[in-house]
């Protein structure tokens, strides 16, 4: 049961942290509960499908189907997060002003909500398929300990949900005037980390053969295998042994986010001046 708890907890934490950030980022948008829950549910369904067709997926692309799927969904998630930050740049101030009485921001927010729901779905899909495969293996292996392991699994899911809730509560405790800045930074680093992970899967799949060796190793300081290391990995894209391609992708996403914010910020600023 302990082993099941640990493995499920480890996977659920990763998805849970992403959901926590998304919940904080969508605070004040009406209908966000439906979108986030829908994203989680879609991710769960997807995880079951991925688990059910794991063999078929693995055989695609000369045995690199799993890597292709992982890299693909990660890149989708990065695109959605860039989209969301762009939306935040143009609507953040307005949203902050009307956080208590949301009305007309809802319509415009729905597209950003969809983007973030997809991010949740992707996170749940990736981590969830591993959990489903693990629990399936346990259930198929024999009934003797299945109950214990399933309860361990459920506890793991609950533990992940607690971490997610703690992160959410921690984020929304940040004063409103700082909240959007913190969330923008957090989403930027989250996206940068996902992009770096995508590079790792591209290398693992055999598509990326240069810039793949680790530049440095900080695993003695903070191991990626430890819980704090995993949290830092999800939230800030921490990697103990980043390769040049991972670092490049990480920095590139940060650069794109900054440029997008600047351009959209100027446009919005210009529009506001014109309308004034």
């Amino acid at each position, binding site marked *: 049961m302990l082993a099941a708890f640990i493995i499920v907890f480890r996977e659920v934490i990763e998805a849970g942290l992403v959901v926590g950030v998304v919940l904080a980022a969508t605070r004040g948008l009406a209908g966000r509960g439906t979108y986030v829950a829908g994203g989680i549910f879609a991710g769960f369904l997807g995880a079951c499908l991925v688990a059910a067709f*794991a063999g078929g997926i693995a055989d695609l692309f000369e*045995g690199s189907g*799993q890597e292709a799927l992982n890299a693909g969904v990660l890149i989708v998630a990065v695109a959605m997060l860039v989209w969301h930050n762009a939306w935040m740049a143009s609507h953040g101030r307005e949203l902050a002003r009307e956080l208590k009485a949301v009305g007309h921001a809802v319509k415009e927010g729905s597209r950003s909500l969809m983007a973030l729901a997809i991010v949740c779905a992707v996170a749940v899909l990736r981590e969830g398929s*591993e959990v489903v495969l693990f629990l399936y293996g346990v259930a198929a292996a024999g009934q003797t300990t299945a109950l214990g392991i399933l309860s361990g699994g459920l506890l793991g899911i609950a533990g992940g949900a607690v971490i997610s809730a703690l992160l959410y509560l921690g984020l929304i405790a940040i004063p409103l005037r700082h909240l959007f800045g913190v969330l923008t930074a957090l989403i930027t680093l989250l996206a940068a980390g996902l992009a770096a992970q995508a590079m790792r899967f591209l290398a693992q799949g055999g598509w990326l053969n240069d810039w793949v060796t680790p530049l440095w190793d900080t695993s003695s300081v903070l191991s990626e295998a430890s819980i704090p290391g995993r949290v830092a990995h999800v939230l800030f894209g921490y990697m103990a042994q980043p390769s040049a391609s991972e670092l490049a992708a990480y920095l590139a996403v940060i650069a794109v986010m900054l440029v997008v914010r600047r351009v959209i910020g100027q446009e919005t600023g210009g529009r506001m001046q014109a309308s004034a």
Partner: protein
Amino acid sequence: MTISILRPAILAAACIACAALPAAAADVQTIELTLKDHKFSPETIEVPANERFQIKLTNADATPDEFDSTDLRVEKVVGGGQTGIIRIQPLVPGRYMFMGEYHAATARGIVVAK
């Protein structure tokens, strides 16, 4: 737990076999690894340092497992009765732990890069 060293003859045979495959696969050493009863065999893999290689993992168990290594920076699920290729980037000399994440108590092994 003897260290399995690929003899030159096997290597040569492997290279001839590889020559038929696409160029990308031809210059990469492939190491056969089996997972049975949630244990890896061999449990120690010795590879030359600073060279790309790949592990061909045959999962002889009925249930899936995930080849997972923070040290080697890879993770890959291999279904029950299936085979998966795990590509490893060039390693600096050292010892690299790996495990079958779903049966981490027994499924453990180590890559030694020399």
